[in-house]
């Protein structure tokens, strides 16, 4: 499981980096889906099989297909690839790299400098998650359903042709 975690973490990092730097929208989306699969494997190796399955089904399945549909509707052809490349000149990389690099560097020093604590090897199955979801966090489930309803109505209203 340890090897699985480090391997999928490496794939997730590389996939995410490629996803945010590609100029072709579809390629970026495919790399993002690869990264999501790798993150799902991380979840699995950390003893969360239910969330790993939902990550693949809901995130990589439903949400990414939504983005895919919009990319198709926007009809981003070769001229948009060239435009994206124009939007990413060499000097545009400098400030984001420095800022994100400083952020991650300081955080890594703080996290890895602290005394390490091991994760538990036992996996927490769907039953335990369901019990916690519908007892302790019942109000959260209701709020989430309201949020989804508002998102549905809002997306319908905003997306309508006016």
């Amino acid at each position: 499981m340890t090897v699985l975690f480090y391997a999928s973490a490496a794939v997730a990092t590389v996939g995410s980096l490629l996803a945010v730097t590609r100029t072709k929208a579809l390629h970026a989306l495919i790399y993002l889906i690869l990264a999501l699969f790798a993150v799902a494997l991380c979840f699995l190796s950390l003893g969360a099989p239910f969330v790993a399955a939902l990550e693949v089904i809901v995130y990589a399945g439903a949400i990414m297909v939504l983005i895919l549909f919009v990319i198709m509707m926007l009809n981003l052809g070769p001229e948009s690839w060239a435009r994206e490349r124009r939007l990413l000149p060499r000097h545009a990389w400098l400030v984001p790299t420095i800022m994100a690099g400083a952020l991650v560097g300081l955080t890594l020093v703080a996290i890895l400098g602290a005394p390490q604590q091991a994760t538990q090897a036992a996996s927490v199955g769907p039953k335990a998650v369901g019990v916690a979801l519908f007892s302790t966090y019942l109000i959260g489930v209701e709020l989430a359903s309201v949020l989804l309803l508002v998102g549905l109505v809002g997306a319908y209203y905003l997306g309508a042709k006016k």
Partner: protein
Amino acid sequence: MTPQVTSAAMSATAAVPTGHVLAVAAILIAIGTFGVLLRRNLIFMLMALEVALNGAALAFIGAAARWGTADGQVFVLFIMVMAAAEVAVGLALILQIYRRTSTLDADILDTLQG
């Protein structure tokens, strides 16, 4: 409930240290921030946000694995619901912006003069 962890206990269980999980989560969040800062196309900014949200979810799973409870997994489910609603509304906004202005460049969309 005191953290009773030594390097000997860690090597005995051969599990991933919590700090390494949090480190990967921090890297993912930083990559997402990097993408939002770097890109000017709204679709790519939305995709970079998804990367950052996944980093946050991984941090929750790391904490859940640290304590061996289901609470962290429940919060990841809430993150997924939030991401679904965010992507639906965000993509509807992007489509509407594209219909009205025929561009997705965030630097051109400055009519609010922010």
